[in-house]
């Protein structure tokens, strides 16, 4: 993917010189992915934050330097804009005492008998998946959306969230277990060990 990076950097250089065609190309290349992330991270202000991210890119295109991927930069900028636009503080969610992975696993049905076919059917329902994601905290949902829904690499997800690799993967794992627990609520239990 270094080719895409080279293209993005060339666009930034032209944008820094005031080229509006290059700016349009940058928006077309990245707004779908960055927008989907921001609308999940902050549904109330995601669209505004998306615009802020691109306007910031217009203003600061000349100062990008060597900061990793351009898309990651847009996501980080948009995330900051969303936090600014929103009165609620996200960080406070992270400090509550975390249940252990075992407890989260048990809530998700780990170690319990279940009907695999029923669970597979639950996964086919976009609505159930969507409702399960909605029920998560902002930071849990963000981790799943970045990696599982949008397919970002860990290094990009770490850059956007400001977490180290270990902390991010731990959050992702816990978030998935919470999502499975939410899905499990719609799957009938079987009474004997399968």
């Amino acid at each position, binding site marked *: 993917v270094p080719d895409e990076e080279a293209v993005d950097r060339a666009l930034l250089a032209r944008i820094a010189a005031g080229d509006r065609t290059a700016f349009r190309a940058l928006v*077309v290349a990245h707004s779908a992915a960055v*927008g989907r992330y921001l609308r999940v991270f902050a549904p109330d202000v995601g669209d505004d934050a998306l615009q802020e991210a691109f306007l910031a890119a217009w203003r600061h295109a000349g100062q990008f330097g060597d900061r990793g991927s351009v898309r990651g930069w847009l996501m980080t900028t948009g995330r900051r804009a969303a936090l600014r636009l929103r009165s609620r503080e996200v960080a406070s969610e992270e400090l509550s005492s975390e249940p252990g992975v075992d407890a989260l696993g048990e809530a998700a049905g780990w170690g319990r008998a279940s009907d695999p076919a029923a669970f597979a059917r639950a996964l086919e329902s976009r609505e159930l998946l969507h409702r399960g994601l909605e029920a998560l905290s902002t930071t849990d949902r963000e981790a799943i959306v970045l990696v599982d829904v949008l*397919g970002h690499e860990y290094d990009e997800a770490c850059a956007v969230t400001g977490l180290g690799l270990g902390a991010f993967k731990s959050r992702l794992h816990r978030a998935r277990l919470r999502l499975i627990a939410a899905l499990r609520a719609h799957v009938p239990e079987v009474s004997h060990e399968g």
Partner: protein
Amino acid sequence: MKGERRLGRFTCSEVLLRLASFLDGTLPAGELAEVRVHVGGCDRCARFGGEYAATVAALREPAAGADSDDLADTLLSRLEPR
């Protein structure tokens, strides 16, 4: 979990802790082999691991570039002159 057991080097809990890394292929080779030994003999971990993997797979959405032209028009009208 109730009925927790050790198969190979890892217990069920130790396998649960490694599920994400098992799935994304970042587990060190030695641990990967041990997780496989455990899951090969433990129905409950095998089943839960399968459901975990299926959930991750079900979440992936294809990229869609719908209204980016409209957004570009909106933004171009908002750009500060240079």
